[in-house]
């Protein structure tokens, strides 16, 4: 709905008031949005530290910089709705309400992890909070959310599903096949592309024909919205429109949220080898956290940040002291659900 650029505080407040008038989830107050964004930021900072220290092994794909997308989109949802996310999925989980301690314990491979340590960072599932899953294969989230939309249609339960995926996924078969399928079936799905401009180490335009993502919506007869992905209120606004359309039986929408990851693609990558310093600096100037802080009453952001710092410190401490799963028990586990 709007291009990338500075946020107009007054318009953002106006949009927020309009949204609040239809708020049935209590998720849409600006303080709440900011609190979730800060939680994600500090959680991810902690994940990075724990990875460097060797406490978290394997890999990480960090979400700092993109918080406004998950928080804004998930705030447009209500109880019973669902999201499918990517391997850069900690933000989506936390935005949906996943317990941060259980999520951190999962990344640390502990018994108390949200999936008992079986899933790890790239495959988290938290259905209790509407997270169908984080999908480790690029594009996988798109089909899972499409299926949730299909279930909604057949069961007539009024739920909406969101697929989060990156700019890299728009060149996967999942994207093209599922957008077509969902469009002809008018499924209640919102496809949210988090365009952070780079698929792993490669610039999006150099591997994406036409250089546009939202432009692909036309091929599948979908409305396409471009939103400043670092403006949480703007994201919420666009997502609310797309969710309303889906819930009203009018079908799916493609939302392209333009954003930027502050960190590299994964693990120890810093992004320095492929992202110009000026570009990084410009995007750091569009950090969604300070932009939201500017909309809050004086002192509010500082208070929320202090609370979140203490909260994340407790999360790390509790998760690190959680017990390990029992390997002996796992040897006799069964991978299928069987009647007792």
């Amino acid at each position, binding site marked *: 709905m709007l291009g990338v650029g500075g946020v107009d505080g007054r318009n953002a407040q106006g949009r927020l008031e309009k949204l609040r008038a239809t708020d049935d989830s209590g998720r849409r107050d600006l303080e709440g949005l900011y609190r979730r964004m800060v939680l994600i930021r500090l959680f991810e900072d902690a994940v990075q530290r724990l990875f460097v220290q060797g406490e978290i092994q394997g890999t990480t794909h960090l979400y700092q910089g993109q918080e406004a997308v998950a928080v804004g989109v998930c705030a447009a949802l209500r109880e019973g709705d669902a999201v499918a996310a990517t391997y850069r999925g900690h933000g989506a989980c936390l935005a949906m309400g996943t317990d941060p301690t259980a999520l951190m314990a999962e990344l640390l491979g502990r018994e108390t992890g949200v999936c008992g340590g*079986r899933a790890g960072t790239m495959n988290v*599932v938290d259905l209790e909070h509407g997270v169908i*899953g984080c999908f*480790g*294969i690029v594009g996988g989230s798109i*089909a899972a959310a499409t299926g949730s939309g299909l*279930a909604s249609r057949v069961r007539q339960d009024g739920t909406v599903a969101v697929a989060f995926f990156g700019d890299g996924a728009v060149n996967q078969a999942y994207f093209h096949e599922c957008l077509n399928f969902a469009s002809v079936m008018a499924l209640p799905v919102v496809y949210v592309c988090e365009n952070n401009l780079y698929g792993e180490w490669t610039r999006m335009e150099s591997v994406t024909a036409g250089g546009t993502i939202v432009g692909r919506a036309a091929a599948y007869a979908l409305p396409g919205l471009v939103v400043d992905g670092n403006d949480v209120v703007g994201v919420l606004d666009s997502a609310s429109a797309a969710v309303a359309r889906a819930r009203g039986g009018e079908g799916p929408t493609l939302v392209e949220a333009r954003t930027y990851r502050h960190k590299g693609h994964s693990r120890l990558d810093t992004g320095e080898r492929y992202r110009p310093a000026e570009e990084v600096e410009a995007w750091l100037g569009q950090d969604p956290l300070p932009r939201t802080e500017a909309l809050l009453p004086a002192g509010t952001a500082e208070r929320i940040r202090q609370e979140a710092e203490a909260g994340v410190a407790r999360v790390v401490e509790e998760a690190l002291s959680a017990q390990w799963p029992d390997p002996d028990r796992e040897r006799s586990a069964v991978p*299928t659900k069987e009647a007792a």
Partner: protein
Amino acid sequence: MTTLSYREAVTAALAAELERDEAVVVMGEDVVLGGVWVTTPGLAERFPGRVIDTPISELAFTGAAFGAAVRGLRPVVEIMFADFLWLVTDTLVNQASKYWYLSNGQAPVPLTIRTAAGAGGRFGACHSQTPTGALLGEPGLKLICPATPGDAYALTRAAVQDDNPVVVFEHKFLYGRRGEVDEQAPVERIGRAAYRRRGDDVTIVSALAAVEKAIAAAEILAEDGIAADVIDLRSLRPFDAEAIAESTGRTGRLVVVEDGPPLGGYAAEVVAVAAEAGPVRSARVSMPDLPLPASMALEDSVLTNVEEIVRAADGLVEAQAVMR
């Protein structure tokens, strides 16, 4: 008991499941008009909105079926030719089959994938495969292979009622076979083999269309005084290791027949299971290590046949006689 063709048995099983549970939906290419194998005729009229034609996008509609299964549906997907399973391996292997385990039991994935397998129709290399071997090693997945109309009914119902992803390999050359179907029988749990013939001299194990060849071979062997157990695996995963071990424990001789390449198929697994259970002499009757050719002269030459099975069984009996 009623007499139905194999394809009518599949339709009857789907109708019974659509009737039983409103969460069941049938999806695939052309299924509203009955599908190219004529296994879904009339269902769209009887169950409006629950028989869904899809685009030719196997990955999308199977992936969506997975998502729908997690979110409360019990989808039955038709993949027109088993060769097209390769298009959906990400959904099948990276998502559906691992979900129950990885989510630590948060939700089951009651997803059935029906597909027509089997060679002999001159369809060529990419419309004739029975790609069971590659899926044998996937934890969380079940693979079933009905060889009779009775099993087409019983196992299809068992697959739909199972809470896990199940691939049902239907054999395109069995669709016209007629046989008895017990529509009143209680729905079974997947994983049991069946004895199609009993004998104490040699065990012949097979699945799908190879079962008929195994029975024909057993009849020829009987004329020579060799009595064969014929085991129809019915389910390739899980595997009925007990039935195999019970039989080879009596016979000490094992022939496994598989219309597939020799490497990495169920035949190798059956031989391994039997060997672990006790002393047994084994032989495999498989196809050559080749893609399937189209020419009728070539295709018939690579499929397993009754004569090979008889020779393999004879060979085991004679070898043991010499050793004594």
